[in-house]
């Protein structure tokens, strides 16, 4: 019975909705009731997975009109005004969710509107999650993910809407259809856009795919889902350190020409995130300098197709959200990095990425030329993201700064980034012959992937560290203070910035070891690491 009902809900959600309205239409908050009803109906993972997904491989057109779909999306724009809809038609049937009265042609103008039945629903633009890596999409969907697709979502349960913020990742489950959307409110031209009439939503935690911190050891026989207390012979700390070492080695060998030190810093960048805004504990930006420029491509491919560093594929294998940004003068001058509202339509910007994205910016494609105004603005926007983790959305007469959480890794050929000020700079120490350079840019399918179990452990380490917290015991705190004062007496050039940097590194170091408290040894080690890095620079 329940299974049948569920099947019906899958196939013909409209009828189910109408029946529900007939039975419970006088519920105090019917939209809320609907949301609860449907989310209960599809509570079990099995039934939830049966809902077809909407993504690039199955775009809105491929779904039957008014069928039930789920759509994991990033909220792009919440500035649309709410829509009014008739919650109850004249014949007493259910309104909303794209259900309109069938109407005879003749009585076109003399329709009566009962204004007391007007209800509001929120409208927002959602896109399929940019920067989402394949394995993450797979884990959530059992399906392939892909590029952006924009859709208009009508959310009827208004309690939830207030919590949706730009760049939030939310799964909308609802009825797919099309609605006319008036983009320009001072004009009357309406265009039909794919629309999702949302029945209920599921929000995702900050990590998108949850992992535990501190890490627990996976049993080898268990697959992705099962995580249990480790019973292996090795103590967990040792295991963490070993896994970390293996991970760094793998990253170094596959993507960084064997430079372990650089790989370690890249790992730090991968696990960095915004921890607090007041005071600002932001992810440090990292530049991997001396990173060889991509080998020349055959002219037949065209100048725009500069190869992407293999690092991006390695990051995609480890992180749920990663976005490769290939800089070139052309893309800088032509694309828009910040979202901008034009004629009251918020045009998306490259940097409008979900919280927790790790961005790989490669400067390999930049040639000489003029950076136009748009380019300057774009560079500024990205710099602002690195410095303050805010992205200004441009509206007429005002700018709204939105918090971002994008950790940036820049690879550049020069001694420092051509465009950006970064917190950390690690020169790549790798062989410079053409074979080695080609290896840095080898296509993703040539990467030697570790065993699935190993890869899963790597992901546990990285993703888990991303959501971890590090406590600082009193003793370590004292030690840090004392050391700073000492350093400063020794070297006048040591400033507060150095202290902040050391603290950032040491915390990341502790996180990467899955240590929930910062020990003096880790601090020392981290500081030594930073000193080594600085020594390499000079």
């Amino acid at each position, binding site marked *: 019975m329940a299974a049948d009902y569920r099947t019906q809900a899958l196939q013909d959600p409209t009828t189910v909705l109408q029946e529900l309205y007939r039975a419970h239409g006088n519920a105090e908050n019917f939209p809320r009731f609907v949301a609860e009803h449907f989310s209960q109906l599809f509570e079990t993972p099995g039934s939830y997975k049966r809902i077809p997904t909407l993504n690039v491989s199955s775009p809105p057109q491929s779904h039957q009109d008014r069928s039930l779909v789920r759509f994991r999306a990033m909220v792009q724009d919440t*500035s649309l*005004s*709410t*829509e*009014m*809809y*008739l919650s109850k038609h004249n014949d007493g049937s259910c309104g909303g969710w794209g259900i*309109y*009265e*069938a*109407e005879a*042609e003749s009585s*076109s*103008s003399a*329709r*009566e509107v*009962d204004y007391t039945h*007007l209800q*509001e629903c929120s409208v927002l633009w959602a896109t399929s999650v940019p920067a989402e890596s394949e394995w993450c999409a797979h884990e959530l969907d059992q399906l392939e993910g892909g590029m952006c697709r924009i859709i208009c979502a009508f959310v009827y349960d208004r309690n939830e809407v*207030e919590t949706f*913020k730009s760049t*939030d990742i939310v799964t909308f489950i609802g009825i797919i259809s099309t*609605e*006319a959307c*008036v983009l320009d409110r*001072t004009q*009357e031209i*309406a265009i*039909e856009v794919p629309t999702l009439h949302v029945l209920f939503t599921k929000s995702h935690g900050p990590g998108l795919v949850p992992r535990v911190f501190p890490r627990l050891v996976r049993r080898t026989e268990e697959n992705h889902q099962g995580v249990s207390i480790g019973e292996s012979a090795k103590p967990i700390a040792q295991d963490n350190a070993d896994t970390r070492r293996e991970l760094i080695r793998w990253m170094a060998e596959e993507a960084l020409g064997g430079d372990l030190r650089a790989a370690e810093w890249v790992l730090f960048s991968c696990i960095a995130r915004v*921890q*607090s805004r*007041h*005071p600002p*504990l932001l992810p440090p930006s990292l530049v991997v300098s001396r990173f060889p420029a991509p080998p020349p491509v055959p002219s037949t491919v065209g100048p725009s197709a500069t190869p992407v560093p293999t690092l991006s594929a390695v990051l995609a294998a480890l992180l749920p959200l990663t976005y490769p940004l290939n800089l070139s003068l052309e893309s800088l001058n032509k694309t828009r990095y910040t979202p901008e509202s034009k004629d*009251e339509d918020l045009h998306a910007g490259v940097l409008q990425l979900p919280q927790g994205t790790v961005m790989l910016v490669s400067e390999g494609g930049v040639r000489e030329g003029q950076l136009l*105004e748009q380019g*300057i*603005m774009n560079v*500024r926007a990205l710099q602002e993201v690195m410095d303050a983790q805010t992205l200004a959305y441009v*509206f*007429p*007469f*005002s700018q*709204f700064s939105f918090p971002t959480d994008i950790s940036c890794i820049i690879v550049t050929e020069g001694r420092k980034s051509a465009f950006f000020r970064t917190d950390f700079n690690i020169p790549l120490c790798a062989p410079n012959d053409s074979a080695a350079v080609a290896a840095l840019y080898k296509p993703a399918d040539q990467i030697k992937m570790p065993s699935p179990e190993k890869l899963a452990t790597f992901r546990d380490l990285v993703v888990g560290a991303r959501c971890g917290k*590090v*406590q*600082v015991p*009193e003793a370590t*705190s004292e030690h*840090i*203070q004392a050391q*700073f*004062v000492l350093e*400063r007496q020794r070297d006048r050039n040591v*400033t*507060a*910035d150095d*202290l902040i940097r050391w*603290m950032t590194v040491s915390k990341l170091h502790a996180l990467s070891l899955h240590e929930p408290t*910062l020990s003096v040894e880790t601090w020392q080690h981290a500081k030594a690491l930073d000193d080594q890095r600085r020594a390499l620079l000079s």
Partner: protein
Amino acid sequence: MGMSTPRRQQTPLFAPGTSSPLPFPSSSPSKNKTPTRARRLDSDLPASQSSEPLAFPSSPAPVSMPKNRRGDIHSSFSFTPTSARSRSKRQSNLPNDDLRSDASHLSMPASSALNLSVPAVPSDDDDDTGEMKAIWGTNVNIQDAMRTFREFIRGFKVKYRIAYDRERGLRTRILSSPDEGEVLLYEAYLRRMRQTGERTLNLDMHNLAAYPPSKKLQVLLVKYPQEVVPLMDQVLKDLMLEIAEEDQTAGVEDMRGHQGEEEIAEIMSKVYKVRPFGVSSVNMRDLNPSDTDKLVCIKGLVIRATPVIPDMKVAFFRCLTCNHTVQVEIERGKIDEPARCPRDVCGTVGSMSLVHNRCEFADRQVIRLQETPDAVPDGQTPHTVSLSVYDELVDVSKPGDRLVVTGIFRSMPVRVNPRQRTLKSLFRTFLDVVHIRIGTDDRLGLDRSTRQAGGDRIPGVGGVGGGIDMDDDEENAVERQHRTTKREELEAKLRALSQRQDIYELLARSLAPSIYAMDDVKKGILLQLFGGTNKSIARGGGGGGPRYRGDINVLLVGDPGVSKSQILQYVHKIAPRGVYTSGKGSSAVGLTAYVTRDPDSKQLVLESGALVLSDGGVCCIDEFDKMSDATRSVLHEVMEQQTVSIAKAGIITTLNARTSILAAANPIGSKYNPKQTVTQNIDLPPTLISRFDLLYLVLDHVDEALDRRLAQHLVALYLEDAPMHGSGQDILPLDELSAYITYARSRVNPTITEAAGDELVRCYVTMRKAGEDPRSNEKRITATTRQLESMIRLSEAHARMRLSPFVELDDVKEAYRLMRDAINTSARDPTTGEIDMGLLDTGIGRQQRKLRGDLRRAVLALLDGAGGNRGLRWADAFVQLENQSSVKITSADFQDVIRELEQEGLVKVTGERDRRMIRREGA
């Protein structure tokens, strides 16, 4: 079109064909004339109103009585001031009224659109007796409402409002005499309207609530504005006439005899409008269907406005065959063209043609109003609503203005795709605006003094609050009523705060609390935020003579990593109209204004950049030194003339940029070289540097105690769950600080007292002397009149900060201290010819000062011990002291102490460099 309002379909009064929403009792004189016609026509020709078949509308009317069509109200309600009816009605109620002019009303042109038919659609609610008490679907009793409003206008006195405000716990105005409270406010307004020819009465709804008999009317007005407002319009016109007649009878000046007749005739020909306001404002996100057709008030920022749209209100059709004319009113944004001639005799199909110049049009403009940044919830993008403004409100506001708008919330079904089978009835929501107020946003309020007087006038008579003429915003009631009790509390709190002894320190401390130390810099910036008063010399040639800026400009120069950018960011957040920009990334375009072509209108428009946008606010420019020369040259003009001139695409114009500039610059080579002068250290032309009132050098020093505290501070901040958090001192939260500054800026304009004036002169002279340095021939900053002006501004700002109406001696002293310190840190030291780093130290850290004291005693002891006249060699003394001391003595410290002693006349230094000798003097 399409911005019109839906009619309430179920309301027979609004049904097609009925122009009059007010079904008057059957006693209505004209009722007998038309009922059958009206019924017949309605049945076959909805929405059309027939004129008398043969009477051409052009037939001359004895007195032309314009129809009262209001765009804002009209859309669902075409009310014609058929004063005949209402007056005759009123006659029965108020028989003592003088209704001399009624005859003229009764002889209305029959062809005009008013038909006084009974509701066309038969309604069960219709009382057959004709005693229609209330407007259908509402509980508005027409007679009651009209009578109440009448009584209100005739009876409202200022004292009622004062009592009402007092009840609500608001601060009230003190009346100079009891008589003042007895003034019949609205009668006075009406007389003024007659004298000035003004046709709009702005009605503060709080006054309605304040007047006991009309309390209920206020509630009705909020709930049923489209029913009540026309009634009010009607009463207003009646009363205009009545008062005019009374005045004529009483023989008031200008109203005698013929003149009076003319006046009355003129009043008769006019349309009068009541524009209510004073509903408490709501966030536009909170507007929901339950607000439909109610009076609401929202605030926002105009982002764009359409050009004036001629909005057809009544279409005029003429039958090509028989010349019969028909007027059709707009309905749901559409005009239904009559398919055939409604005249029975003619009845030709398709003969009706539109006569354009006989149609009636109204001005309409659609404005998009966006939420202001402060109203948007975190992480959300701002919402926007449409406003429809009509008639005289068109073009009152411009893009960029902040508005407080009172209007009727509408939701109208729109058929988005007529070709489709199912009508997807989406609803368009917008506001029909009845009243606009420009620019009252407490936090982001712009400096009033930067707007020219009378620039933003809203049409209409009738100020706000209880005063006769309180259009100035300083203490008026609108400000007060928009502020809830919470606001009131805040204001009281701010006042109380200003009484604190340590208010200056408290505010300075609250400014960027996460930044360690730098007290004087914070104080300087604090005063910048308060700003001096803008002065313009009223007399003098053209346009009121020169204007002296009150804005204080501050430049921070210093080593990297001393949180200059943080300070800027912070100021940007709290400053009114703060704009933050980085000199490096900003092209000249970003900082100034540029000309573009508007995509909609294809007209050239000026788009303003950061400086113009921050007109009346603070513009924070980071990396000032990295700015291109072109952009910087613009700043020259901005900082002294406070304008931006643009010559582009054939348009040469000067835009106001009355902005304070807070800039931060890094020294050349990123580290400040203490051996060089400021001008050598910063890559900025001295002309520009001198335009800054305050220039601070923010340098990095090594000091153990300081370092330890800094480390403690940082570790506490940057590592979670460490015990320390903040300095434990009380700090004003950001919004309170911001409120305080805005309050001071908008309310306090201190004037300089005599004592303060004398002190200013004295300080200036002192500073000028200190600047004299015959040895230097390099470009350098000396005290000029600019410094005097700066000092005046700083003193004013300091007085403002205390919320004091006068600039007093202490204000000047503090201003002088700040100036002197800023100059001391930035200008070269006259004795050594070097930037004296030591001077910076004073005021930093007690440790340092204590160390100095010890050193000083040690030096004197050393010199005394060394045996009087011969003195000691510089280096020897230093080494000896170093050996004595347990802590490290820096040469700078030593040098400072020696110089201090030298200045005090206790020691004398002779010789140069290594050969310097220190000798004890005096004693």
